[in-house]
């Protein structure tokens, strides 16, 4: 364990891996942020829950807070694993899982709530 920690702590990582980690995290953030921002703009003029439909009601109950946390948290965990282990594949896994969580959560949960 100590040797693993020493290997992980000291050492150099490629600059391209660091840059791709930042870009992937920012792209994932921009996707979720755009989704939440569009919902906020779309639901701002519907104070009653009936006009906004199920998605606005779900949004106003705070359901998309969990979407933002789950989706972006998955991406952050994947990026941290990629930085610690110097493996690009964790970045790919994290981004795909974040997209999957956003799709599943944004489509399934508002329609079933």
């Amino acid at each position: 364990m100590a040797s693993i920690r020493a290997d992980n702590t000291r050492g150099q990582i490629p600059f391209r891996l660091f840059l791709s980690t930042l870009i992937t995290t920012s792209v994932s953030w921009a996707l979720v942020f755009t989704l939440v921002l569009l919902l906020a703009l779309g639901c701002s003029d519907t104070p009653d829950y009936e006009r906004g439909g199920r998605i606005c009601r779900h949004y106003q109950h705070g359901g998309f807070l969990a979407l933002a946390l789950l989706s972006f948290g998955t991406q952050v965990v994947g990026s941290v694993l990629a930085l610690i282990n110097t493996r690009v594949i964790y970045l790919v896994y994290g981004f795909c899982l974040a997209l999957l969580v956003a799709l599943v959560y944004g489509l399934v949960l508002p329609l079933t709530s």
Partner: protein
Amino acid sequence: MPHPYENTEGLERHPLSRPRTLPRNVAVAIFAVVAAIELHCLLFMAYSGIDFERYHESAAFQSFRDSLGPFSLLLLTVVRVAFVPFPISPLPLAIVLLGAWITLRRGDLQPALLALLASSVLVLIEPILVYLIF
């Protein structure tokens, strides 16, 4: 067999084509600060959509705002960038900056990652503390 990123045998013969590297703790510290700021904006944007008026009367908001005074500015301020409001809270950002600084000074990765976790938890519970408990 070494990982392709660690296998730089062929690249060492060509100094100009050697890939640029940076220390791992510097990368983790910068990433922790960037991820904390992004998560911060995202969670507050998601929080701003919750209809808190449904849970509290508007008089409670007014009394809370009057009782806190300048402390509310310390707790939660709003920065507008190109007509998009970004609520900014200094306390989680201070925590993650402290963790990143310790990581830069000591070389361990744990302070920045723990500060990122603590900052995320604090960002998550801070609006609940502000709006529901007080």
